[in-house]
C-alpha cells in the first residue's frame, strides 16, 4: 500500500507541558521522516525534547503534556487524530517501544512471561502454548535462555533486562521500534553488546528504529541517519557520514569537537560554552545564538527557517538560508 512513501512522517509537531506558571513548549515545530528499515539516531542534550518527541509520536505522553499542533503520519494514518481504541489496534503490532530503564519499565510483580503474554493476548488470539513458544522465540533472538520466562524482573541482570525489553518489542515484528536511551543504564561493555544485537536484529528483520540518545558516538556506528535536536527544535538532519565528515550546524560542529578521536593528534577539548535556554522563556531568534561562535546579527532577531543545502538533509541556520537573508555559505557546495 505504501511501499513508496516514508514509514513515519512527523510534520510540524508541537508539544506543550503544563507547568505551574504556564506552558512550556518542549517540542516546537519538528518535522522528520523515517523510511522503512532505516536506523535513525535522534541526538541531543538532556531536556532538549527528544524523549518528548518520541512519546508524542507514539501518543504515549503523560497527562501533563499535550500535542497542540502538527501531525504524525504513520503508514498513511495520522496518529494525532486517532482515538485510543484505534491506536490500540496498531500498538505493538506495528509500532513498539523500548524504554530507558528496564527496571522501571517492567512490572515488578509479573513474570517476564506474563508480561509478554499480556502483549500477545491483547492483539491476537493464540493458544497459551503458541504464545509461550513465541515468547521463548523472541528471548532466544536476544540471547536469553527461555528458562528466564518464569523469572521476575528483579531476578535478571541489568543487561538481560534490557535485552528482554527488546525481545518483547519484537513480539509482533513491528515496522518501527522507538527506543529511548535504552543503553544509558548499562556499563560500556553491555552497551556495546546491546547495540550490536539491536543492529543485527534490525538487519535480519527489517524494522526501522528511532534511537534516542545523548551519546552521539555510541549511535554513530549503527545509525543510517542522524537527527540533532536542540531546545525543542531539530537543527540538523543528515546521513551519519555527512554529520561526522561535513557537519553544517554550528551546534553539531561543537558537539563533534567535544569528542576527541582516538586516532589523530592530541588536541584540546572544546566544549560549547553556556547552557541551553530555559524553555519557559524561549529566546526570540535562533535558540542556539547565545552560544554560537558563528552568530550573526540576524540570528538574535528572527528564527531561522529550514534549509536543505545538500538536498537530502536539513539545517536550521541562517548560514544556509538562500532566500531573504543569504548566509555566508549559501550556495556553496562541497
Amino acid at each position, binding site marked *: 500500500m505504501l511501499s513508496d512513501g516514508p514509514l513515519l512522517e512527523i510534520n510540524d509537531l508541537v508539544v*506543550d507541558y*503544563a507547568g*505551574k506558571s504556564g*506552558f512550556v513548549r518542549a517540542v516546537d515545530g519538528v518535522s522528520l521522516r523515517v523510511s522503512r528499515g532505516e536506523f535513525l539516531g535522534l541526538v541531543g542534550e538532556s531536556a532538549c525534547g527528544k524523549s518528548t518527541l518520541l512519546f508524542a509520536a507514539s501518543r504515549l505522553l503523560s*497527562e*501533563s503534556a*499535550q500535542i*497542540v499542533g502538527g501531525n504524525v503520519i504513520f503508514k498513511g494514518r495520522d496518529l494525532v487524530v486517532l482515538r485510543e481504541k484505534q491506536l490500540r489496534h496498531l500498538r505493538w503490532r506495528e509500532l513498539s517501544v523500548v524504554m530507558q530503564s528496564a527496571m522501571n519499565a517492567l512490572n515488578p510483580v509479573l513474570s517476564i512471561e506474563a508480561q509478554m503474554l499480556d502483549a500477545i493476548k491483547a492483539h491476537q488470539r493464540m493458544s497459551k502454548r503458541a504464545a509461550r513458544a513465541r515468547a521463548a522465540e523472541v528471548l532466544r533472538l536476544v540471547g536469553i535462555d527461555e528458562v528466564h520466562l518464569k523469572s521476575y524482573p528483579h531476578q535478571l541482570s541489568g543487561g538481560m533486562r534490557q535485552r528482554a525489553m527488546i525481545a518483547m518489542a519484537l513480539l509482533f515484528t513491528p515496522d518501527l521500534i522507538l527506543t529511548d536511551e535504552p543503553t544509558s543504564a548499562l556499563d560500556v561493555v553491555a552497551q556495546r553488546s546491546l547495540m550490536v544485537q539491536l543492529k543485527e536484529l534490525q538487519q535480519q528483520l527489517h524494522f526501522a528504529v528511532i534511537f534516542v540518545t545523548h551519546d552521539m558516538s555510541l549511535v554513530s556506528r549503527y545509525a543510517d541517519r542522524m537527527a540533532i535536536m536542540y531546545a525543542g527544535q531539530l537543527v540538523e538532519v543528515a546521513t551519519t557520514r555527512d554529520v561526522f565528515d561535513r557537519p553544517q550546524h554550528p551546534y553539531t560542529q561543537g558537539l563533534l569537537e567535544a569528542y576527541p578521536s582516538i586516532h589523530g593528534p592530541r588536541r584540546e577539548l572544546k566544549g560549547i560554552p553556556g547552557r541551553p535556554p530555559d524553555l519557559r522563556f524561549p529566546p526570540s531568534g535562533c535558540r542556539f545564538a547565545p552560544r554560537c561562535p558563528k552568530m550573526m546579527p540576524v540570528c538574535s532577531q528572527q528564527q531561522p527557517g529550514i534549509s536543505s543545502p545538500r538536498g537530502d538533509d536539513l539545517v536550521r541556520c541562517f548560514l544556509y538560508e538562500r532566500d531573504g537573508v543569504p548566509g555566508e555559505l549559501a550556495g556553496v557546495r562541497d
Partner: protein
Amino acid sequence: MYQHIALEEAPLPVPAARGRRPRLLAIGGLVLSAVGSNAKAVLGFAILGIFVIMAVFAPVIAPYGPTAELFLPTLGPSPTHLLGTTNLGEDIFSQLIWGTRETLLIGAIAGGLATILSVAIGVTAAYLGGIVDHVLSSVTDIFLVIPALPLMIIIAAYAQGGGMWVLIIVIAVTGWSYGARQLRPQALSFRNRDFLESAKVRGENRAYIIFCEVLPNMVSLIVAIFLGAALYAVLAAAGLQFIGLGSTTDVSWGTMLYWGQTNEALTSGSPLWVIVPGACVCLLGASVALMNYAVDEIANPSLRGRRRRLRAQRRASA
C-alpha cells in the same frame, strides 16, 4: 478512624544553616501561606476556633451550671433549654459548653505528651543507633501492634477511677508509637547531612545538635504528628469515658455520652443528649483531620495541585 498518610522523608527543602530564627520563621511563613490558600485548613482552624471559644468563655456562654439539677428531668429541646434536660434535670446545652473544656484539655495535653514521647524515642533511636536503636524500635513496634483500646481499658480500670489525669497518661503511654515510627526515618535522613557535620566539627555536643539543629528541621512532621496524636486522644478519651472509665462525675462530652447511653437516652425521648456531644467529637476530629490533611499537602508536593493541573490542561485544549 483517621489513617494518617505516611510522609516521605524530609521533602521540605532544608535552608542554609544560618541560625535558628530565620529558619523557623521561614517554615512558619510557608505553613501560614499554604494554610491560607487551602480551604480545608481554613475550615479546620475555624471549627477548632469555635470550640476553643466555647471552652474559654464557658461561664459567659452557658446559661446554667453544668451539674445544676434545677429543672424538670427529660425535657425535650425548647428555647430555655436548647438541647433539653437530662434525667436528673441538668441542662444539656450548658453541660455541652462546659464539657468542652475537659475534652479539649485532654486532647491537647495527651496529644502533646504523646508527641513528646514520640519525638524523644524516635529521634533518640535514630540518632544513637546501634543497640539502643534496635531496642527502641522493637519497643515501638510492639506498642504499635498491641491493640490500644483494650490496653487502655485495663490500665484505666486498674487505676480505679482516677479521673482526667489517668486518662491523659493512659492515652499518652499507648499513643506515642505511631509518631515515633514516622519520626525515626526522617531523623535518620538528617544524621549524615552536611550541616550536622559542621556542627560536630564546631564542637557542639550531642544534645545541642539534636535540639537546635535537627529538631527545627523536622517541625512540619512534628506538627503533623501532634495533630494526629491530638485526634487520637480526643477519640480515645471519648471512647474510654463512654465505657465509664475515668471519672464519671466529670463533665465532658465523653461522660455525657456515658450517662446518656446508660439512661437509654435514644429510646427515652432525649436523643440529643448523646447525639450532640457525639457530633461535637466528630466535628473536632474532623477539624484536626482537615488541618492534618493540609499539612500533608504542604509536606508532600506530589499530592498538591493535581486538580489545578487538570483544570489548566482542560482549559488549554478547549
